[in-house]
C-alpha cells in the first residue's frame, strides 16, 4: 500500500468539503474492494474519506411501499434486518449470500452499488426491483444508473446516500457462486411486481447486470420455470474465462432464473 491519509467526517457536508479539497481522494466504505486494490498497489488515493459515520447514510426503514437502506449499511445488517425480512426477504437472502461473514460485516450496500462489479450481487436487486439511488445531488433510476461493468452514472464526488426499493409482490434471488471468488457467476433476481415480472441477472454478462426481457415476457404470461424452455440469453453477450465459457454462463443464467422462479411457486 502507498502512503495515504484517512479522514472520518461526521456529516455529509464535511465529506463533500473534504472531497472538494482533494481531487485524488477516494471515498471509503467497508473497504472490501478498495483496500485490497490499494494493498496490491493498483490504486493510490491521496486520502480516504470514510463514509461509514455519516448519519445520513445509516439505517434501514420502511416508508410506505418502499424499503430504504442507507448506503453505509453492511451486508450483515441487511441480512439480519427484521424490516428487510418482512418486506423484501429476497434482499436479506442476497445479502447473506454475499462474501463471507468477515466481508458481510464490513462491506456495504453503497460500496457495492458504487463499485458495480459485474459479479456483485446487489446490482441485481437494485435493477430487478427498479430501485432508486439517492445521492447527495439527485435521485437516479436503476435503469439509468448501471452503465456497464464498473461503470455507473455517479459523477466525481457524488455520494450514494441511500437506496429505495419498491416493495414487490414477491421476489427471489438465486446465485451460482464462482468457484474461487464466490462472487456471482450467475445471479438471478426475479420479482413479481404490480407492473409485471422483472428479471435482473448479474455475474454472467460482459456488460454487467442486465434485464432478461425475453424471460420477463415469458414469465409474465406463464410464471413457471417451464415457460423458459426454448428461450435463452445470447451466449455472445456472456463473459468467458478459465472458470466457464460463455455457453456455460448462458446456461447458468437460465438455470438460475428457473430456480428463482421455482422458489416463488
Amino acid at each position: 500500500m502507498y502512503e495515504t491519509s484517512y479522514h472520518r467526517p461526521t456529516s455529509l457536508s464535511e465529506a463533500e468539503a473534504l472531497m472538494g479539497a482533494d481531487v485524488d481522494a477516494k471515498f471509503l466504505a467497508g473497504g472490501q474492494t478498495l483496500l485490497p486494490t490499494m494493498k496490491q498497489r493498483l490504486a493510490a488515493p491521496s486520502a480516504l474519506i470514510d463514509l461509514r459515520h455519516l448519519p445520513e447514510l445509516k439505517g434501514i426503514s420502511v416508508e410506505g411501499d418502499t424499503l430504504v437502506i442507507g448506503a453505509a449499511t453492511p451486508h450483515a445488517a441487511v441480512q439480519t434486518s427484521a424490516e428487510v425480512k418482512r418486506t423484501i426477504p429476497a434482499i436479506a437472502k442476497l445479502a447473506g449470500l454475499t462474501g463471507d461473514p468477515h466481508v458481510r460485516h464490513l462491506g456495504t450496500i453503497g460500496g457495492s452499488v458504487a463499485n458495480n462489479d459485474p459479479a456483485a450481487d446487489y446490482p441485481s436487486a437494485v435493477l430487478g426491483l427498479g430501485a432508486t439511488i439517492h445521492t447527495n445531488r439527485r435521485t437516479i433510476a436503476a435503469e439509468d444508473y448501471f452503465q456497464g461493468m464498473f461503470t455507473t452514472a455517479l459523477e466525481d464526488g457524488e455520494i450514494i446516500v441511500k437506496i429505495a426499493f419498491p416493495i414487490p409482490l414477491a421476489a427471489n434471488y438465486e446465485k451460482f457462486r464462482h468457484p474461487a471468488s464466490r462472487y456471482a457467476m450467475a445471479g438471478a433476481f426475479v420479482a413479481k411486481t404490480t407492473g409485471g415480472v422483472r428479471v435482473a441477472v448479474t455475474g454472467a454478462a460482459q456488460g454487467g447486470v442486465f434485464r432478461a426481457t425475453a424471460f420477463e415476457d415469458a414469465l409474465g404470461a406463464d410464471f413457471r420455470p417451464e415457460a423458459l424452455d426454448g428461450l435463452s440469453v445470447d451466449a455472445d453477450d456472456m463473459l468467458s474465462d478459465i472458470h466457464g465459457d460463455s455457453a456455460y454462463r448462458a446456461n447458468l443464467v437460465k438455470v438460475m432464473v428457473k430456480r428463482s422462479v421455482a422458489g416463488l411457486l
Partner: protein
Amino acid sequence: MGIEGIGARVVRKEDRRFITGKGRYTDDIVLKDTTYAAFVRSPHAHARILSIDTTAAKAAPGVIDVLTGADLAGDRIGGLICGWMIHSKDGSPMKAGAHPAIAHEIVRHVGDQVAVVIAETKAQARDAAELVEIDYEVLTAVVDPAKAQDADAPQIHPEAAGNLIYDWHIGDAAATDAALAAAARTIKLDIVNNRLVPNPIEPRVAIGSYDEAEEHFTLYNTSQNPHVARLVLSAFVGIAPEHKLRVVAPDVGGGFGSKIFIYPEETVCLWASKKIGGRPVKWTSDRTEAFLTDCHGRDHVTRAEMAFDADNRITGFKVHTIANLGAYMSTFSSSVPTYLYATLLSGQYAIPAIYAEVEAVYTNTVPVDAYRGAGRPEATYLIERMMETAARELGVDPADLRRKNFVKSFPHQTPVIMCYDAGDYEATLDKALAAIDYAGLPARKAASLAKGKRRGLGFSCYIEACGIAPSQAVGSLGAGVGLWESAEVRVNPVGTIEVLTGSHSHGQGHETTFAQLVNDRLGIGVNNVQIVHGDTDKVQFGMGTYGSRSGAVGMSAIVKALDKVEAKAKKIAAHLMEASEADIVIEGGEVKVAGTDKTMAFAHVALAAYTGHNLPAGMEPGLKESAFYDPTNFTFPSGTYICEVEVDPDTGVVEIERFVAVDDFGNVINPMIVEGQVHGGLAQGIGQALLEGVTYDMESGQLLTGSFMDYTMPRADDLPSFEVSTTVTVCPGNPLGMKGCGEAGAIGSPPAVINAITDAIGVRDIAMPATPSKVWAALHGAA
C-alpha cells in the same frame, strides 16, 4: 497405552499456543536494526535483461542498497542446487542449468527475481522497488510440458538441449512389450496430473543476520528442514562454513513440501546482511509472491497402457510421462517424477512386468518440486484411473478387478525397486465396501436419477512409500544426502526430559506424539517432556520433515536414544537399590525392582545421575543419550478410498455425498492426530480433483490463477463429513511398527473422486480439476 501413551487421543500440546495466537513464527521475529528487502520480479516469462538502472531506487527515501544478479556473481555467491542426481537412459547425468539466487542476464519465469531493494521499512523497500528500471528483450516462452521439446520451443537453459533435463527409465522394456503383445486385452489411458500451488497459510519468510564480530551468520526461515538448508547454503551456495551459519526455523505455519526447498531469497537475505554491514535483512513473502515463487506441485502428462490376460489378471504396465520441472531445478525436483513416482507404479497389484519412461523438461514456469505426496499421488492417480477404466472396459466390477490383482503375500518384490513389507489390501477394501454399503449403490443411483441427478461411485486402492529412506539405498539412486534421523534425549536432574529431534514440526503435532512416546516408555507424563527442534544450534543434525518420515524415522531415532537412557537409568537404579540390573523395570515414572516392593522415582535416578555422589564404579555422570536411526526400508501405508458423488446435470456441480477412507498406517501413536492428517490430506486431494489447478497463458506465460480470486482453495463447505477408519498390519521395518499418515489422504483421494464423476456422467475421462463448467460441458458433449 495409558491415557498419555502410544495409541491415546492426547490433545495436542501445541494447540494452546497456536489457537491463542501465541505461536512464534519467523515474521514475528524482529531483530534490532532490522532492514527490509523487497524483490523486483520479472513481469515476463522469458526475457533477456538488457539493462538495470538502480539510480532512482538508490536515491529513494530510506533505501540502504539495491543489489542485482551482477553483484551476486561479483561476490562469487554460488547458485542453488538440485540435490538428487538422475541419470538418463544413456547413462548421462541430468542437464541442470544454473540457478542463480538473483537472475543474471536471462529471466525464466514470471516472478523470477531480478533485483532486491534493502530499505529501512517494508513500504520504503517496495516503493523503491518500483523505481528500479529494467529493460527487457522479451523472448518466446513455453509453459506446456508437452510442447517444451518442440522444435520451435525456446531454449531455456544452454545446458539442457531441447529443454530435456533427463530421459530416465525404470523396469523391463522387453518383458513389458512382450506382455502387451501377448495380452488378451490392453487398456490405454492418457492422463494429465494438474499443477497445484501449495499455499500454506504462512507465506515464506527469511531473515538473514550477519555478526561482523564473530563472522557468523544466522538465518531465520520458514523451513521444514533447517539442517539441510544450512548444509546447502554452506557447501554449495558458499555463504559460510557450517560452524559459521546457524539456521533457525521456529513455528512454521504449514509447508506441504513447499518449505523443504532452499530458496533464492534465503541466500539473498544472508548475503545482503553482510553486504550492508551486518544489519539484519528481512523478507516476508506476500500471497502474490507465494503464487509466483513457492515451488508448485505435480504437472505430469502421461500416456499409459496396461495388459490383461483372458482371466483379467494384469500382465504388464507401460508408462510414458513428461514431468514439468519449471524454469529451474529445485532442491529435490529430480527425484519426484522418478524414484518417488515410478517406483510406486505397481500399486497394490501383482504386476509381473512394468516399464516406465520419464522425460523431465524445463518450461518458463515456477519450479516444480515435492508437494504433499510427491510422486505418489501422480502414480496413484494413474494406476487407479487405469484400474477403474479397465474394469469398465473389461465389463467387470471395479472392486473385483482390484481384488483379483492384489498382492496377497509379503514381502513382495515389485519390478520397480520397491519391496512391500506388509499389508492386507483385502482387509481395507472389505472394510470400505461395508462402510459405503456397496450393495445399496444401484438403489441410490436410481433415487438420484429420480431427482434429476446422476450418482456415481469411485474407488482408489492406493499404496505409497513413506519413511524416506535407507541412506545407502537412496545414495545408490542418486540422493546427495543420507536420509536417517537423529535424536537426543536429555534427562534433567529433576527428571523432566528434553527430546531434541532433527524432524521439524510445521503442523504435524510432534510436540504431542513424540512426548507420548517418551511417556509410554517412562510414564512421566507428556507435560514433563519438551520437544526441541528447528534450530541448528540446539539439534546437532537432522534431515527434517517430509515424506511422512517423522514417525517411522524420527521417532525410531528417539526409541534408540531412549533405549540407551533406560539402560543407563537401570544401571544406576540397580546400584542404588542393590538389585540386579535385569530385574529393574521402569513404569509410571517409577523405577522398580521386579517382584519386590523396592521402587524409586525416575526423578530420583535422574538426580543421582547428575549429583554423581553414588554411581556404579567407572560410570560417567549425567543422563543424556543420542542416536542416529537409519531405516532399513521404506514403509508402505495403503488403503481403500471410496467416493460417492451426485452430479447436478443442469449446472455440472459435483456434490460429494460420501467419502469413506480406510487406511492401514501400521501402529498409530495418536488416532486423533492421524485422523486430522487424513482429513487435511483428503481436503487437498479433493481440492486437486475438483477445485485447484494452475492455468498459465500459453503465449505469454502469465500465471492466470495468481490469487485466491482465481485459484480455488478447498473450503469446509466443499467437503463432506469424512468417514475415516483404519486397519492395522504392523510395519516390520521399525521398532514402533508404524508406517506414516501425513500424505495418504492427498495421495489416495483424487482418483476416487474422478472415478466417481466419470461413473456418474458416463465419460471415460475428465480433466482435473473437474469444475462445474467442465462437468457440464462433458455432460453436454462439448468437452
